[in-house]
């Protein structure tokens, strides 16, 4: 089966006074259409570097990327990006912030239809009553809702989310995870998200890609998460395999992210046909 996003030997090298430093080395990943994949790893391991390379915001030092059969070069509206801080223009309202991109991407469409697109996405993220407020009048959680609406409104082929809930408190984060997953289901998007929150990764993902610590970060292991969809937070937490997977991920982050310990790991759940999870070890 052909893949929607393919990353081949993605490499990033930065020049430093003490010579070149390899941040990401030979990063390989394939994502199917409609899949939700989380990249998990410690701060500074290079996971955001991978995401910004896919977004076209950071040049590749080596390797290549293909999205929907076309090579990716530079940034473009075919990839909707949600950043950790929502990056809204403070002098525009939430609605105007969303319209900025909509006006570009749907430029041949009549104005009323472009407005309908922005209103639709701002409404489904829960901002129907606040879409004409400026960012300063919105709470941090509401601003991030605008960020999500803005990304979806452009009908991107793919969503790239860089720790979108990292600055929110844990309760607001739970609310927004639900908003995101419902919109993702509705629009059947392909998504790649960077996070270091184990619970967030388990709730949202079809697959969790665990990255080793940098420099020379690469794929450490991949965890398949097969909790039934649509997912509801309480039911996922009650799943018999949930805490096994959670412990496995925490353990990876605490111990195995250090490459020298990588060889010692084994799957958290015995592989069986109906299992909720199985582990694929990176073949490299």
């Amino acid at each position, binding site marked *: 089966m052909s893949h929607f996003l393919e990353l081949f030997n993605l490499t990033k090298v930065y020049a430093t006074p003490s010579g070149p430093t390899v941040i990401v080395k030979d990063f390989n990943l394939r994502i199917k259409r409609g899949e939700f994949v989380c990249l998990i790893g410690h*701060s500074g391991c290079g996971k955001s570097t991978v995401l910004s390379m896919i977004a076209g915001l950071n040049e590749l030092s080596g390797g290549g990327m293909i999205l929907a059969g076309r090579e990716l070069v530079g940034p*473009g*509206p*075919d990839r909707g990006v949600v950043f950790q801080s929502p990056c809204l223009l403070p002098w525009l309202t939430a609605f105007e912030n969303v319209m900025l991109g909509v006006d*570009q*991407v*749907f*430029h*041949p*469409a*009549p104005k009323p*239809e472009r407005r*309908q*697109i922005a*209103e*639709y996405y701002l*409404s*489904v993220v829960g901002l*129907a*009553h606040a879409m004409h407020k400026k960012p300063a009048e919105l*709470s941090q959680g509401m601003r991030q809702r605008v960020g999500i609406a803005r990304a979806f409104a*452009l*009908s*991107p082929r793919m969503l790239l989310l860089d720790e979108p809930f990292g600055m929110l*408190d*844990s*309760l*607001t984060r*739970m*609310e927004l995870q639900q908003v995101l997953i419902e919109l993702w289901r509705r629009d059947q998007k392909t998504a790649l998200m960077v996070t*270091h929150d184990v619970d967030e990764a388990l709730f949202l993902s079809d697959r969790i890609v665990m990255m080793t610590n940098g420099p020379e970060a690469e794929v450490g292991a991949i965890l398949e998460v097969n909790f039934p969809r649509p997912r509801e*937070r*309480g039911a996922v*937490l*009650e799943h018999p395999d949930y*805490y096994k997977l*959670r*412990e496995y991920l*925490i*353990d990876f982050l*605490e111990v195995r992210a250090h490459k020298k310990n990588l060889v010692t790991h084994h799957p958290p759940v015995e592989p069986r046909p109906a299992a909720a999870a199985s582990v694929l070890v990176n073949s490299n």
Partner: protein
Amino acid sequence: MAFLELKNVGKHFGTTEVLRDIDLSIEQGEFVAIVGFSGSGKTTLISLIAGLLQPDEGTITLNDLEISAPGPDRGIVFQNYSLLPWLTAFENVLLAVEQAFPNWSAAKKRQHTEKYLALVNLSPARDRKPGELSGGMKQRVAVARALALEPQILLLDEPLSALDALTRATLQEEISRIREETRKTVVLITNDPDEGIYLADRIIPLTAGPGATLGPSFRVDIPHPRDRKSINHHAQFKTMRRGIGDFLLGSRREHHQFATRKLILPQIEPEDLSLPRPMGRRRPVRPKEIQRELIELE
């Protein structure tokens, strides 16, 4: 009568009711975590206990004495550290010691200050000013300052919310250890249910405001010191994680207003902006116009 007792406490600012019907009893030596959303009134609640605010209804007593003003019997740690920037870590703590124990000799005051800086593992950085300390270290100074007052109760107002995840985990372990060593009564305010489960004997959710009130208590019987990994296998940890989250998210939903509105999403294909824009007006591309048909090839 419990050690700290809040009876029917209410507070409003102007016409906005922030807290209502707060009833809370905390026993001596107990560690209670109050968990709620940002903006739900958690800081107002701890300011009432600290005596920085007065309740509009109800009474608050500590050790049978009504609280009417701030005092050194309650040590407070704030989220923003609140250290004096022109004093070193040592001098910040010493300042509090001098206020609380004016009759002690200078040597005793200094020795007492040293003891509490050692308790929070900060002796090596004692002569640094707040600007030269990391967020985690600043919060250690604030904890040392609060404990050096030898308060009857320690009030922690989201002490770890401004710190990154790794530092937060380290300081959670420190708080757990210090608590085991001092057996203080502690009230912790937090927005993280996991932090509460890791540290506290009892967790009480504060409903989403306005008009926030306390929900049912969840008692945590997992023995101390708690291990972050093995806690995953504890049945109580699992039910509590779900229970507290469901309660709080549910209380927030009660405040949401729902409306049915007709939304229209026009079906238009996004343009490829990497191509040059054609001159003149053009119709938008609609998905139904892109049709796949079987065609015969010669």
